[in-house]
């Protein structure tokens, strides 16, 4: 039941959902629907869960509103009040339109992020299944560490999210549709409007000047699409067109851009030619007649289109990079404002030098600058793996070499003084030797290969998952040390129980399974060791704590 404090913004009666009549409520933070005659909501969505709303086309008999949730589910409401259905729907739509963007900002970004991480990382997903789904640890615990890592590790993409550029074709997306009775309909979305504003600041200014004092939003956009500004190829412009000023402003902006000149000297067509022919010399290349009068309307509209495309692309580009290089822009601004373009000569050379150097560079003719690393090329990898083999005698080419080396060794031996404080005890030494001699513990053929052969793949897979899950838990556990806050104390105890639980619910069954298949129990030995290590650490910590307390 709706709490009393909740503010109800809109109530629409006679709304059907799943063929059931009911009432739709739009509240401050959620939208809800209850069947008629009952006082509970069977449908209730937080605005932040809603991805978007869709409405049925105008011509349709059924007047519907569909809500699509982030989860992908959707709910459809059918407005059934015959006389006012359309109005009801539009009212709901309008309100939602205003409400949704507000919540969109914080629209479960975190959930999406988690979702994304799980989808992108199969290992993480498996881990999630192992730990959270099987309820070894809670989801919060699982994520607390993860997302924290994300936040600390690379704060950039998370904290200030990357500015999304504008599609070059956003105006093309507004396809006018004929509505059947001699009119055009444009579908505008919030995204498109934002694109227009970002690309054409002049329009935004007009918008804030005129809406809603002089024009309604709808009127504003109608005029926009009717204007010469939008249809740049139309030459005749209405005098009362509010956008004619925008066009002029754009023109000015374009001109100032052009006069500013280009920074890269290699693309500056003006200074390309060293010595242009004087006027009157040369084969005349159909000089464009200077008077505009004899230009046909078509021609000038063509060049208007071309201008428009250049301008549009430049604006889109600028809108995309506006935020990023504001400081650099300002720097160049100052350098170009303190004099005409020639004065900025003093600033020019570095860039020019760099560009020239780039242009004459042949990277493949030069030896690579990084010190060349020799790739390890093993002809017999087993020899590499199994340690040194006695050198073949033929490699000692001369007997002199042998004599030399023998005498060298002799000399070394005479000077040899055992450092007795640092030698191993004899028992350790013998055990090490025993372990390393054939048949010893370390010399058992327990290489990767043998595991591959001995253990069936499903067990291997399982073992892998166990390792990952255990590793994750242990990571949590060890990250609690040194335990210096009450929170950590709590956590470390919890983690210990988690570990024990994991051992009970996951590791034991696995061990039993392994035993059932008569495989060497050694497989999990290392895992057990790790757990034991953690437990002993925990015990030490606990006893210390007790001592301190007593």
């Amino acid at each position, binding site marked *: 039941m709706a709490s009393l404090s909740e503010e109800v913004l809109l109530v629409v009666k006679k709304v059907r959902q799943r063929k059931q009549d009911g009432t739709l409520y739009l509240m401050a933070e959620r939208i809800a629907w209850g069947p008629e005659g009952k006082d509970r909501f069977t449908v209730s969505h937080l605005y932040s869960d809603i991805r978007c709303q869709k409405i049925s086309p105008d011509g349709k008999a059924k007047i519907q509103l569909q809500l699509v949730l982030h989860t992908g589910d959707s709910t459809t409401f059918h407005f059934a009040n015959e006389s006012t259905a359309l109005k009801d729907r539009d009212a709901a739509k309008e309100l939602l339109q205003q409400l949704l963007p507000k919540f969109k900002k914080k629209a479960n970004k975190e959930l999406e992020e988690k979702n994304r991480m799980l989808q992108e990382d199969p290992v993480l997903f498996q881990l999630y299944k192992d730990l959270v789904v099987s309820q070894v640890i809670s989801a919060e615990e699982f994520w607390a560490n993860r997302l924290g890592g994300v936040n600390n590790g690379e704060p950039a993409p998370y904290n200030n999210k990357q500015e999304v*550029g504008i*599609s*070059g*074709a956003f*105006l*093309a997306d507004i396809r006018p549709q004929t509505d059947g009775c001699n009119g055009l309909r444009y579908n505008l979305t919030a995204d498109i409007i934002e694109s227009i504003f970002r690309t054409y600041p002049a329009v935004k200014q007009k918008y804030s000047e005129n809406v809603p004092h002089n024009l309604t939003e709808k009127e504003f956009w109608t005029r926009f699409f009717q204007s010469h500004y939008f249809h740049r*190829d139309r030459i005749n412009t209405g005098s009362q067109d509010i956008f004619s000023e925008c066009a002029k402003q754009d023109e000015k902006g*374009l001109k100032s851009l*052009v006069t500013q*000149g*280009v920074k*890269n*000297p*290699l*693309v500056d*067509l*003006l*200074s390309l*030619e*060293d*010595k*242009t*022919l*004087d*006027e*009157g*010399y*040369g*084969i*005349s290349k159909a000089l*464009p*007649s200077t008077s505009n009068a*004899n230009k046909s309307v*078509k*021609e000038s*509209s*063509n*060049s208007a289109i*071309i*201008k428009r*495309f*250049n301008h549009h*692309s*430049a604006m889109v*580009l600028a809108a*995309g*990079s506006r935020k990023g290089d504001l400081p650099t822009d300002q720097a160049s601004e100052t350098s170009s404002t303190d004099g*005409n373009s*020639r004065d900025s000569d003093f600033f020019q050379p570095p860039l*020019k030098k760099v560009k*020239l150097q780039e*242009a*004459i560079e*042949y*990277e*493949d*003719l*030069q*030896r*690579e600058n990084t010190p060349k690393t020799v790739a390890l090329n093993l002809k017999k990898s087993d020899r590499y793996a199994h340690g040194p083999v006695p050198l073949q005698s033929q490699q000692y080419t001369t007997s002199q070499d042998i004599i030399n080396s023998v005498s060298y060794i002799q000399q070394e031996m005479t000077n040899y003084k055992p450092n007795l404080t640092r030698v191993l005890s004899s028992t350790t030494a013998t055990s090490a030797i025993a372990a390393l001699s054939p048949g010893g513990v370390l010399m058992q053929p327990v290489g990767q290969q043998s595991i591959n052969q001995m253990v069936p793949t499903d067990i291997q897979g399982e073992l892998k998952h166990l390792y990952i899950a255990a590793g994750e838990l242990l990571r949590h556990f060890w990250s609690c040390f040194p335990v210096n806050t009450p929170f950590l104390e709590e956590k470390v105890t919890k983690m210990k129980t988690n570990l024990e639980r994991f051992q009970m619910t996951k590791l034991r069954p696995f061990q039993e399974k392994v035993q059932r298949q008569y495989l060497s129990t050694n497989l999990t030995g290392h895992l057990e060791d790790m757990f034991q290590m953690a437990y002993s650490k925990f015990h030490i910590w606990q006893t210390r704590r007790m001592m301190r307390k007593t």
Partner: protein
Amino acid sequence: MKLNIEGLLVYFPYDYIYPEQYSYMLELKRTLDAKGHGVLEMPSGTGKTISLLSLIVAYQRAFPLDVTKLIYCSRTVPEIEKVVEELRKLMEFYAKETGEANNFLALSLSSRKNLCIHPEVSSLRFGKEVDGKCHSLTASYIRAQRHSNPNLPVCRFYEEFDAVGRQVPLPAGIYNLDDLKDFGRRKGWCPYYLARYAILHANIVVYSYHYLLDPKIADLVSKELAKKSVVVFDEAHNIDNVCIDSMSVNITRRTLDRCQNNVDTLQNTIHKIKETDAAKLREEYRRLVEGLKEANVARETDIYLANPVLPDEVLQEAVPGSIRTAEHFVGFLRRFLEYLKARLRVQHVVQESAPQFLKDIFDKVCIDRKPLRFCAERLQSLLRTLEIADIADFSAVTLISNFATLVSTYSQGFTIIIEPFEDRTPTIANPVLHFSCMDPSIAIKPVFQRFQSVVITSGTLSPLDIYPRILDFRPVTMASFTMTLARTCLCPLIVGRGNDQVALSSKFETREDFAVIRNYGNLLLEMSAVVPDGIVAFFTSYVYMENIVASWYEQGILENIQKNKLIFIETQDAAETSMALEKYQEACENGRGAILLSVARGKVSEGIDFVHHFGRAVIMFGVPYVYTQSRILKARLEYLRDQFQIRENDFLTFDAMRHAAQCVGRAIRGKTDYGLMIFADKRYARSDKRGKLPRWIQEHINDGSLNLTVDEAVQLSKHFLRQMAQPFRQEDQLGLSLLTLEQLQSEEMLQKISQMAHQT
């Protein structure tokens, strides 16, 4: 590495070398040995410049008496600066290897606009303004006036240079434009005149074509360069047009009106001077009687105006008596001007040769050939005598007098066309007199005659044999090198049909065809979805592009393209286009991807490189034929046919294909680069077109990709791009398209290389 090129020790400032660089150097060495001229084609991005510089510098060091100077001509300012930077790299390598600082002096020279450091003058935007302002501060008579009137403005940089700079030679080193400016600022000397002076004793000079090919400038700047120089024309695929442009003159009614004003001003000035300082005019007359040679011992700053024809032809004789006195000359100009005005009052197109024109002018206004020839020289002398400060104002009368000199000097190779109106607007009278040069060999002839070796080189010079023919010289070496590739990093595709099997072509008949335009749009749309980063598309002409863009806009194709990439379009305004270009690069840089629509023969297609991600695909919409209805072109074609036996169609196709090759070649700037080259016109499949593409492009067109549909092209592109996106390391190239010194010296490789060079 140190190379042995047929006994010559060449220092090459890299650890590795491309095989084609080696064979390029071989050919170049042979050219220099033979003291002859050469034509060498090597794809861009294979290190042509550094090969050239390494070899010639080595040659200069080995045989300092045989080759005293390298004159390296390139086309654009960035190109020039790039060359100097490469040279710097080479010299640093020399210093490192030999351990001694070497005494090479190399510098670049550019116009005043790029070199001036005078705070006031250099702030002017246009080259002509800078030149004029500079002249008004530094002309000899202005400086002479200053002796009497010290309040006149002065360029302290020039004064300083004049006082000290000449005695102290520029210390050895490499001077790029900025280095010259720095040096000038430090010393307080004018960098421009310093450079002009220093090129006389420099070992290497890098400057633009005009300083050699435009006789108006060449005479001033390059007259005293040593005969034993090697001249290199880089990016020379358009050299014939540069030659022609520098010798052609257009006269409109506006020119004549301004000229009239000039002549009036001259008259008034003469009148005034006569009252105050008649001695000056008498002095000039005396000088002219003694001969032009004497009169022409001008100071360097005066040579703002120079003779458009080749120097030694005129200067032997004295100025004819009829135009020796100032008043007579002005009267002469008046008569000439009136004659031209009368000629422009035509109702129909007139075309005539220079002798016809001369005969007509003699019949009508009794102007002889001889005084006409001296017109330019005489005007120069007069302007100097009258001490006219702002010489830029007199550009109109200068133009007319240059025309007079040219038309009376050359009886062949030029044509005069008078058109009463533009073809497109037959109702608006806009008479123009075109005096157009049809023979590029006229301008370049003195270069071939004077210098012992001239090398013409570019990435696209195919077919090679046409250049010696139209430039009228006999090369000792002609070679075309291909790009050895470890992976096929270029993918030329000829798209001849749309998905609906409509033949794609930009030919005149189907130009307005919506089906073709739509299919072109589809091609671009599909490519924009497949190709990463930047795509450059070239159209055959600006008008064509405008039309296509408009109809793509109407059909909604552009909007769909915008979904994939941003669109930038070249406009006729250079500043606007520069901005679009920069934004285009920005969009490629930040990963959004962009499309640049541009025009073949435009500034973008000639001067801007689209390396790596700036151009992953180039689409050439149509075959960029020149506008064939122009009378000037027709006259030139006729001339080529009569004089050089080059068929009209051959030349037109050659011209179209070199521009197409230039356009598509913009995308590949090296072996690590890769890109698609899409020729969207079925005519490219014909062997007469295909055969004129450079070899390094041609050999990668296989028969399967001659007549693709849009879909097929997209499939092939996808495949190609996926392959190319794999990492490409140095080791992959090594031994195939990249050699170490040891590999280069192996017998097998040398054999391979020698084979390669002979495939010309």
